[in-house]
């Protein structure tokens, strides 16, 4: 039996109920169907086969194990999609990082109007970090023992999709983003404080000058009498 699910937020999913001895013969057609969604990866494991691409996935498995394996594949696809979204957002942030990085070393008056943008990009980095932190426990969780076919398929997909390694790379990239914006924020803050201090210093100078003039006037007036 074959059916195709096309949920709005999940990849297109082709599920083929097949006995273990039928799986090998049907795999090629399933892989060809999945290839329309992007580069294909496939696994064959203990009488089941799974192929997936960023847009499509196919499962060939015995009827009684369809539901469990389908859940495992959908879970993997969801995590893979979330990870791809974070990867895309982090990648999109690099031009800003390159443009903003000099402000981590030197901040001037003319840069003051960029403070709001820096703050916004820092908040964006923290939000990406939060998304990754919520996802990470699902990517590197301990294997189930004794395993079920669905747990084995899920583990093999996570291994093949290199989810844990990719999360590790993202962690490193986000650390760079946070460091740059943390330093930029410190420089901007130092600059603002320095500018306020300078104004205060001038005010004190003026007050001291006025006081000196008043004292002089007072002294001159006293000398005259």
């Amino acid at each position, binding site marked *: 039996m074959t059916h195709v699910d096309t949920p709005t937020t999940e990849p297109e999913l082709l599920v083929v109920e097949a006995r273990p001895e039928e799986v*090998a013969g049907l795999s090629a057609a399933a892989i060809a169907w999945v290839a329309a969604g992007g580069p294909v990866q496939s696994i*064959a*494991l*203990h*009488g089941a086969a799974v192929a997936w691409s960023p847009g499509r996935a196919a499962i060939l498995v015995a009827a009684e*194990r369809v539901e*469990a394996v389908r859940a495992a594949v959908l879970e993997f696809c969801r995590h893979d999609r979330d990870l791809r979204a974070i990867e895309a957002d982090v990648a999109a942030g690099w031009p800003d990082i390159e443009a903003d990085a000099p402000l981590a070393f030197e901040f001037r008056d003319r840069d003051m109007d960029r403070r709001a943008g820096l703050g916004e990009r820092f908040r964006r980095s923290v939000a990406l970090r939060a998304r990754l932190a919520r996802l990470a426990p699902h990517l590197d969780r*301990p*294997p189930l*023992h*004794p*395993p*079920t*076919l*669905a*747990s*084995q398929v899920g583990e093999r997909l996570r291994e093949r999709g290199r989810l844990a390694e990719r999360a590790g790379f993202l962690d490193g990239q986000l650390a760079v983003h946070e460091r740059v914006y943390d330093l930029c924020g410190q420089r901007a803050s130092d600059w603002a404080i320095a500018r306020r201090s300078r104004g205060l210093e001038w005010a004190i100078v003026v007050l001291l000058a006025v006081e000196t003039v008043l004292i002089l006037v007072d002294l001159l007036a006293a000398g005259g009498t």
Partner: protein
Amino acid sequence: MRTWRVAIVGGGPGGLMTAHAVLRDARAPVELTIYEASERLGGKVLTGSFDRLPARYEAGAAEFYDYSAVGPDPLRELVEDLGLPIVRMGGAALVSGDRMVANVDDIRDTLGAEAADALVEFDRAARDAVGPRDFYRGDVAATTMPAGARFDVALARIAHPAARRYVEQLVHSDLATEPARTSLAYGLDNYLMNDPSYLRLYAIEGGNERLIAGLDARIRATRRLRHRVGRIDAGAKGRLRVTASHAGRDDREEYDFVVVALPVEHLKTIEFGGAGLAGALRRHVAHHDHPAHYLRITILFDRPFWRPGLHDSFCMLDRFGGCCLYDESVRDAGATHGALGWLLGGDAAVELGRLADEDLVAAALDSLPGFLAHGRRHVLEGRVHRWPGAVSAMPGGLVRLPVDRCHQPEPVEHPGLFLVGDYLFDSTLNGVLDSAEHVAGWITDLTATRLEAVA
């Protein structure tokens, strides 16, 4: 400054690891001599090769245990330090009859729902008894298990006979003995090591013997191959005298420290001089003498005909009381040939070990499940390696002795004599490294302390 003379008897992994650690940590000049009875170093770590094709296989230790997810793993660190690339190993399936039983779903289908429930119940009891941290520390037997408890008692508690047989077959080749002849703790350890939360398996790409070559390259020592040590006794000025035979002649030399890094079976072949030392070694051997046996049959095929039927780097077969079937070709990236390795353990290894090599190769081919029987057409060459008494069926003994006492059998009159072996810890290469590091640290401390005393 005084140069300390150290002899290491046994050029296997224990001897080389001790030599490496002594030289690495030495705070005083050390002159090392390694005695090895055979013509090669490495002992149970042996990577073989075939004649028909340039293909390798593991003839001895098949894989290493990676504990690094739980705690520090000195062997993994040593492998990294030597710059050796690794390949992950794994497998969850047992071929029962002609069916692959790879997970609980398969167990339910093949053995029935009651067997699956009994297995899950046993699994929970096993992990309640030994958690990953207990497994890593290896001290659970001493703290929580009844003294003298053996593994067959735990197996007998599995309510369903098919589930019991499944567990027996799953662990049989790792135990290398029968459940009645090993401890409860060791049996549970060998069951639980199938769970990646407890440990992961790896091999060294290009052959496990690269570990031996890496150690050998780092060791500055005199190597005496084909020197069989026959006697160790007291020498002059508190030294120890080692008598080794080579080419029909006996050589005698005296050393400040002697480390005997041999399996219990080989320890029995050395004569220890003096009533105190001889008695101590007799007691040591009696306590640790629980021999376990391996037999390895490896067959080269013109192609890996078992794929994609077998997916992992190994699976278990229900033949020979339960044996492990390795896909040896996964160890070499890009290999076009195929090699399968059968690892038999326990009584089957002893009984079948008496057969001729060609009969063993035939028996191995006969043991292939029906869906792989066509593999006979692809056979190129077969190799057999027998490892009788090579490991311990009950590492540490039924009641574990204090670690120092195991390593220094006679501290009063012969404080310079030490023993190193995997049987003192857990019958693994990780265990032999722990043992080697323990003794090397001890020798390093003694040489430093005596130097300070002299100064």
